[in-house]
């Protein structure tokens, strides 16, 4: 059954809010989409709808954090960080304040709204900021556990969620470490690394390749910072080849994070599947096919690398 990860964010936020009276939530007129409305319904006095004023929202949340409140701030990925880089840099990252940015609708999987709403630069932007932890959960459990886990951190975090519903990758109720990556399938000839929504296609492709007799490791890179270097370096050492799959720009995103690490610690052959241009309106599956993120595209690229 396909599930909407944003509901798991909304519910985790609600639970955190029940336990911690210092939790406050901000939204910029998208609370029914981001699901912060769930928190707002139960705690109207701690919920601040800032209207369509994302920059003001970021700095206001930071001002609150400076007084000991613990803000969760949500809107679409294309606006936070897209529209608010300076506010995030100056008011949250530089003073290292405890503000959690949970942005939804990342990537071209947003679909028919088109390139104006396809955030594919957000991780590149956020990676440049010191002090920020960055998470890209792939399924309901990962989302829920990420929100619960970052509440234990007193500092800036960015969480990227997506629009479309997905099947579970992690079993409900199982233990999940939000700060590390997860090997979903073991293999020795190629490691495919995905994160967020793209993990699902990576996993399906990896399973198909395995059935055909290839030995392919699948990794879900849940946390971009802190980066689970051990799992990546092990994959580089044991598989020798790495394919990264991300619903994000290949310029500075997850693939770049991997190559930055490997170039310095273990030079390895890496190919990247991701977005390198503005996409267009269309169904997510159609866009993934056209822009090289479909199961078929991943299998094709993997075979090129395996041969």
């Amino acid at each position, binding site marked *: 059954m396909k599930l909407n990860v944003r509901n798991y964010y909304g519910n985790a936020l609600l639970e955190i809010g029940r336990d911690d009276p210092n939790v406050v939530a901000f939204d910029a007129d998208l609370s029914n989409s981001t699901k912060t409305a769930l928190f707002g319904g139960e705690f109207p006095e701690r919920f*601040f709808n800032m209207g369509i004023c994302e*920059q*003001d929202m970021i*700095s206001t949340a930071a*001002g*609150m954090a*400076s007084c*000991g409140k613990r803000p969760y701030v949500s809107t679409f990925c294309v606006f936070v960080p897209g529209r608010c880089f*300076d506010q995030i840099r100056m008011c949250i990252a*530089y003073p290292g304040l405890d503000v959690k940015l949970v942005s939804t609708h990342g990537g071209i999987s947003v679909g028919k709204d088109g390139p104006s709403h396809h955030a594919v630069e957000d991780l590149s932007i956020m990676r440049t900021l010191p002090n920020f932890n960055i998470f890209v959960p792939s399924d309901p459990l990962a989302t829920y556990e990420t929100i619960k886990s970052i509440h234990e951190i007193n500092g800036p975090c960015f969480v990227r969620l997506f629009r479309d519903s997905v099947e579970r990758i992690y079993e409900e109720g199982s233990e999940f470490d939000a700060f590390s990556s997860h090997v979903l399938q073991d293999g020795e000839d190629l490691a495919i690394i995905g994160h967020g929504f793209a993990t699902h296609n990576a996993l399906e492709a990896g399973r198909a390749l395995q059935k055909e007799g290839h030995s392919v490791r699948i990794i879900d890179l849940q946390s971009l910072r802190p980066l689970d270097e051990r799992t990546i370096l092990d994959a580089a050492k044991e598989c020798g080849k790495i394919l990264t799959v991300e619903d994000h720009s290949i310029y500075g995103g997850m693939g770049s994070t991997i190559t930055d690490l490997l170039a310095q610690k273990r030079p390895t052959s890496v190919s990247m599947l991701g977005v390198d241009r503005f996409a267009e309106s269309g169904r997510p599956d159609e866009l993934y096919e056209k822009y090289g993120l479909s199961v078929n595209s991943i299998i094709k690229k993997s075979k090129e690398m395996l041969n």
Partner: protein
Amino acid sequence: MAMFDTQKLIEECNEIRKDSIRMTTGAKSGHPSSCMSCTEILGVLILDVMELSPEQAEDPNRDRFVLSKGHAAPAYYSALSRKGFFPREELFRLRDVGAMLQGHPDMKKTPGVEFSTGSLGMGLSVANGMALACRLDGLKSNIFVLLGDGELQEGQIWEAAMTSSHYHLSNLVAIVDRNMLQCDGTTEDIMSLEPLKEKFESFGWKVYELDGHNVEQLQKVLREARDYEASPSIIIAKTIKGKGVPCMEGVCSWHGKPVKDNELKEALRGCDQ
């Protein structure tokens, strides 16, 4: 709290003005003329009006201040040092590597600084966040924010002006250092702000106007605005950029330019006349 003796406060403010000149000359960089227009505003706020002291630094009920025009940091630092937040010697290490005093305020490095600023247009939003947090906790804190007039051109200021009003933040007082100048010329030539009073009134603010160099007026009106309960308040303080040094007063090209070593004595003498 008893009011600070006005004559003494005038003298303190003049010392802050002279410190700003000395500090920026020593650092060979900074914005003395931007400090000199808001010297009295900062002096009266920090030394007289605000419930704030090193002993209250962790008291949740303390008043809070945001210097949205972060480039006036030297005057802010001088006032904080006079209030006892850190030793006076630190003032003369301004902008040095390893020093406590950054070119623009840094809340993590400098005691007494409530928020890091320097990129214009963000301070009013930050102050709104503080006002909301204090109200949520039932604190009696007042939040003050000093805005430059040039930075009112930032769109975020008007987003924040809506927020202050929408959330009825009567525990918030904004002050505009209305010196009429920005980097490239007068505000009215570059991107006109007038009619400023009417703009804020139409956004739902209580607006006060005063002479931003008149200490007695500032003592009175800052308290009035602090105690006004029907809406957020803003004080448009008419000031002179470079106030105190005749050759700097109202001269745009002095923006971001320290007084030279060999002109320092004369500049300081100007402040005392």
